[in-house]
């Protein structure tokens, strides 16, 4: 029995790995899609997930003002702050923002703090000796930045400056009246207005481009095994191989098991390669690195379950098709539809609510949810049990229907 299974696995493995077309569909196509789509949609996803800008801050000031401004931008999650090691000259900054190397650049002049403090004293005392020019903080902007985004940044910047100004004045007043005010016991007049979406990020995953595209196209690729799987099986039936095998000692179930094993392995290689592509290759090509969350080990049961679903689906398609051409075209079409429905091509988060509900009918939607839970929400194995369960159930139902239909066809030739 073991020898039979081994022979069946070897035979099937040879057939797969000698089928150049199948290999292209299974490995090359999805790898290319992940690359192209991840890079192409990078900005679109960034906006979807919340705007994030890169900002160069050149802080020539040694005091509070510079520090407060830098802190304000570092703390905001809308900015990736870059602090240069050496201070670049204005021309370089101008050129580099124009080139889009960073989207904004902020230059805080020397002695900004001391000038501001002096000015506050002038404000309070009216003594000319304290008078200084207003501190000029300069902002450079990438011309490709949208106007509304520019306004958001300007607003943030000006608000921070106002805050700092207030602090300095309040401190100056405090010094004058002799009371030592501490920063912490400043009275709060208004509480801060919070971003209502800030807390929802955790339950509505908004993935990066590669977090959506790598598992998405990976899933589609795994399901594409339907094409070679159903194709060979249908050919085996129409070309008499199955008839011959039926007269032999091995039960037909050995033949089927011989298919499941190599295709399962192929699936794991597929998803492994695509994840590696996202983590290592994509950043080299200027894309974002695929972040897999704190529990990447949860991918293993998920991809096992997806593979089971895909193989089950493939066997079911094979059982219902008469010719290999039918199996190929029906297999490909149905997978593309399931993929579209599952939020592979168009992410679920941008679908209208009704469409989002319909996605439950696509196994790929569940698979993708599982990946997003791991990548974006940081779910561990216990967090994807529902998805794994649904995929396993889908695979099991397909397999059962397929085997019943297959046996019926064999005995009712």
């Amino acid at each position, binding site marked *: 029995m073991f020898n039979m299974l081994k022979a069946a696995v070897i035979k099937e493995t*040879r057939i797969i790995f000698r*089928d150049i077309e199948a290999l292209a569909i299974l490995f090359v196509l999805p790898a290319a899609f992940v690359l192209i789509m991840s890079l192409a949609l990078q900005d679109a996803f960034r906006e979807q997930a919340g705007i994030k800008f890169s900002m160069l801050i050149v802080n020539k000031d040694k005091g509070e003002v510079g520090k407060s401004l830098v802190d304000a931008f570092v703390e905001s999650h809308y900015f990736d702050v870059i602090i240069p090691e050496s201070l670049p000259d204005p021309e370089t900054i101008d050129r580099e923002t124009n080139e889009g190397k960073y989207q904004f650049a902020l230059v805080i002049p020397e002695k900004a703090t001391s000038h501001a403090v002096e000015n506050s004293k002038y404000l309070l005392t009216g003594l000319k000796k304290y008078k200084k020019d207003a501190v000029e903080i300069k902002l450079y902007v990438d011309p490709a930045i949208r106007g509304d985004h520019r306004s958001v940044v300007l607003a943030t910047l000006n608000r921070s400056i106002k805050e700092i100004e207030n602090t300095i004045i309040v401190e100056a007043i405090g010094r004058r009246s002799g009371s030592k005010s501490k920063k912490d016991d400043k009275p709060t007049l208004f509480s801060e207005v919070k971003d209502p979406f800030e807390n929802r990020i955790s339950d509505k995953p908004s993935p990066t481009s590669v977090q959506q595209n790598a598992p998405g196209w990976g899933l589609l690729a795994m399901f594409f095994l339907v094409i070679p799987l159903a194709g060979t099986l249908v050919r085996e039936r129409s070309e008499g191989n199955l008839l011959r095998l039926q*007269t032999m000692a091995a039960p037909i179930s050995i033949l089927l098991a011989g298919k499941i094993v190599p295709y399962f392995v192929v699936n794991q290689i597929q998803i492994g390669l695509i994840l590696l592509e996202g983590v290592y290759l994509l950043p080299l090509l200027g894309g974002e690195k695929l972040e897999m969350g704190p529990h990447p080990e949860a991918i293993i049961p998920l991809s096992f379950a997806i593979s089971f679903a895909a193989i089950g689906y493939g066997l079911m398609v094979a059982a219902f098709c008469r010719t290999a051409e039918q199996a190929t075209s029906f297999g490909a079409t149905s997978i593309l539809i399931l993929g579209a429905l599952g939020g592979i091509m168009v992410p679920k988060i941008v679908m209208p609510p009704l469409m989002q509900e319909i996605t439950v009918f696509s196994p790929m939607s569940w698979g993708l949810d599982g990946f997003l839970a791991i990548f974006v929400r940081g779910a561990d194995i216990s967090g994807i049990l529902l998805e794994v369960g649904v995929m396993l159930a889908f695979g099991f139902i397909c397999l059962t229907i397929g085997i019943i239909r297959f046996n019926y066809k064999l005995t009712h030739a």
Partner: protein
Amino acid sequence: MEDEEFVAVRKVSKMYSNSKLPAVDNIDLSIRQGSFFGLLGPNGAGKTTLLSMICGLLAPTSGSISIGPDSAKNRQSQDNSLLGLIPQELALYPTLTAGENLAFFGAMQGLSGVPLKNRIKTCLEITKLVARVNDKVENFSGGLKRRLNLAIGLLHEPKLLVLDEPTVGIDPQSRNFIFDSLRQLNNEGMTLIYTTHYMEEAEQLCDDIAIIDSGKIIARGTLDELLHDNQCQSILFRTKNPLPSTLIEKISALPFVEKITSANNKTEILIGNNTPDNNFLADILDSIRNAGLDITSLTMGATNLEQLFLQLTGTQLRD
């Protein structure tokens, strides 16, 4: 031993669910051990259907089939190790090599290790494929594929080899080669069932022939028996020049001539049943010679199966 029944088909019929007429209609058939049995019939006669039932691939609608010495057992409950099937389709994996195909099917027959290796070697030798063992089947000619098809059926040393039109689409050399291999196997004691719609194949190979048409066996026996039972004789000759139509009319007017066909210098005359062995040959030859025609070749004797089939069914065997 020689006369022992090996395959017993008893009152077997098969109705496909989507057709009105039975594909196999109440067939009784007994095939002796060691015989080279030919099942001859036109397309759609029911050959494959009958074989499928003998191989246990298809359940008869009624009747019973058994193979092997234990003929009391029902076919469905017998194991298949006695039997090797060479299907009508080329049941091969084109992207695998000949050796890989053999290794796979051999394993599926339950062979492994050294015995499997030895059997593969032997079967490659029988079918003269040793030199092609590492070539992919997709690069094989039709003849080579048919030979490999045969080799696979021989792997587990079956006692009964069932061949469904194994020479479709191959050149005469490969065909003759397969014939020799089959004769050899038969001489070594293997029972063979060979279906074909080529009369000359059955004539050349089989010592026991059944003619099947529309699901029924319409004649059965050795070639001699078949031809003798249906006493039917013919004369076939070629002439340098075509026969003039006056001569054709004259010959067909002879009392014992049933039918005459003449085309391209080739003439065939069918002699009526129960014509006494008189001088009919002399009569015909005289009339040809009197017309001044030279006969370049002449064969005479019992009709071949082709004509027998025509006579039995009124239809041509091949389209």
